[in-house]
């Protein structure tokens, strides 16, 4: 009940925006290729179960690409962060490189990824997603592993704890909130990577291709409903990470809220 009241303002704003959108389109007679009404987007979504565009089978393929890229990018990011945190001297070499690579607009490489890994292969999309995901995971985790309270490190030193014990008992738990923050950013990025990769070519049954095909056929209701599906997938992934936070770091101020004895 209290939670309902907490989210009520956001819900009211969302509904009023949708209603305003619908009214504006109808009253101002906005053309569908500029902005379709929410009701027609919804109708297109329902109708497209078998209308030649296959939004839902496409969503499955895109989701697999995004999740694959998320897994690969997260894996590489975790390994890099752990290695760099374990060998502090490597930071001066790895960090400037990582920052420089991150400054490159990775999306611009999407056409290249297609020619490297095959336009029709899901791995070309996973590669883009993974490249996007890598940096926020690596940098956040590295921060969590290295920015440890100096008194806590002295406490461990007073116990004559070795580097492995310090990592297991102090650095990893300390890094979990940072890692999960990185993961939240990464879920969205992985979907962006997959969809944008598809814009530059891929299987017909992918959301990126549906967006492009819908637009070129002037079926903007289809395009919008595909975008809606990607958005919902992004929100669901984000919520899943929030659930993960509740399970893994119930002690963290961001999760525990105002509960205090």
């Amino acid at each position, binding site marked *: 009940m209290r939670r309902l009241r907490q989210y009520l303002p956001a819900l009211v704003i969302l509904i009023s925006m949708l209603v305003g959108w619908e009214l504006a389109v109808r009253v101002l007679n906005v053309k569908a290729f500029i902005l379709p009404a929410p009701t027609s987007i919804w109708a297109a979504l329902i109708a497209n179960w078998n209308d030649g565009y296959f939004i839902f089978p496409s969503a499955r393929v895109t989701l697999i690409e995004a999740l694959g890229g998320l897994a690969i990018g997260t894996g590489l990011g975790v390994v890099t962060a752990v290695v760099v945190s374990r060998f502090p001297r490597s930071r001066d070499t790895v960090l400037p490189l990582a920052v420089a690579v991150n400054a490159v607009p990775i999306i611009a490489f999407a056409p290249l990824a297609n020619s490297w890994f095959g336009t029709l292969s899901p791995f070309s999309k996973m590669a883009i997603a993974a490249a996007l995901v890598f940096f926020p995971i690596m940098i956040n985790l590295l921060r969590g592993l290295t920015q440890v309270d100096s008194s806590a490190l002295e406490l461990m030193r007073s116990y*004559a704890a070795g580097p492995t014990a310090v990592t297991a*008992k102090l650095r990893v738990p300390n890094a979990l909130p940072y890692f999960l923050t990185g993961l939240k950013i990464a879920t969205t990025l992985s979907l962006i990577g997959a969809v944008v990769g598809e814009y530059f070519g891929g299987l017909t049954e992918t959301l990126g291709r549906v967006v492009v095909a819908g637009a070129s056929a002037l079926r903007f209701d289809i395009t919008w409903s595909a975008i809606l599906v990607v958005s919902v997938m992004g929100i669901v992934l984000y919520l899943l990470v929030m659930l993960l936070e509740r399970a893994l770091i119930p*002690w963290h101020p961001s999760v525990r809220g105002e509960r205090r004895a």
Partner: protein
Amino acid sequence: MTGPESVVHLSHVNKTFETAGAATVALSDISLDIRRGEFVSLIGPSGCGKSTLLRLIGDLTEPSAGAVQVNGKPATQARLDRDYGMVFQAPVLFDWRTVAENVRLPLELFGQDKDTQASRTAEMLELVDLTDFARYRPYELSGGMQQRVAIARALAFSPLLLLMDEPFGALDEMTRERMNSEVLNIWQQTGITVVFVTHSIPEAVFLSTRVVVMSARPGRITKLVEVDLPQPRGLATRESSRYFNLITEVREALRAGEGPASDAGLSSVERTAAEGGIG
């Protein structure tokens, strides 16, 4: 000088810090012996190096010159042998662990078996009167309770020496007095040797068998005050005339150590602290 009774032995210890190219002398020619079972307080104005001295004993920093011995061996070896427990000004508890798990941390690190860990943790929580809070998280406790958890953790593996760095500095006066009595209780029950850093004169006098008075720039020992107040100490101690006389003695030693140049500021702070403690 290192007899079997000497738990801490410092001889001609110097500590210099390099800051922005210039060398600052933090500690100058410190020699001190602390015997088994003593409760020694280090007191002095900020910048006198009392915390640095404590950290030297705990091998959390190294001397620039001179020798630090703990239990008859170099401080580093004593640390590796886990000869001391440490309590910092902040409790330094891990929020991802419950109160009991925090107390258990050193036992886990030392590879003790689960049964010993559990029984020893329960024993320690009872010692600091926190048995009912075993499953709480640190952030659910008050500051005084958190510091009691830190003390229980420091004592969990039965070290020979307890190092405390202004442990009650962040607590209000009432809580601080209650914590002082608890620490004295624990000291008497366990017979542990305690080195205690503080900037409160009443706290130093009430707790200690000996007060080491230090002065700043450079940090050095200016006076050792033997505290002959009878044990066990309690409310009556805080109201005895001997207690007041010793407080005066420590205060005057602190003032003498400051020299004529910078008298006003710190001594009035210390006086306020002293009066707060009595009242």
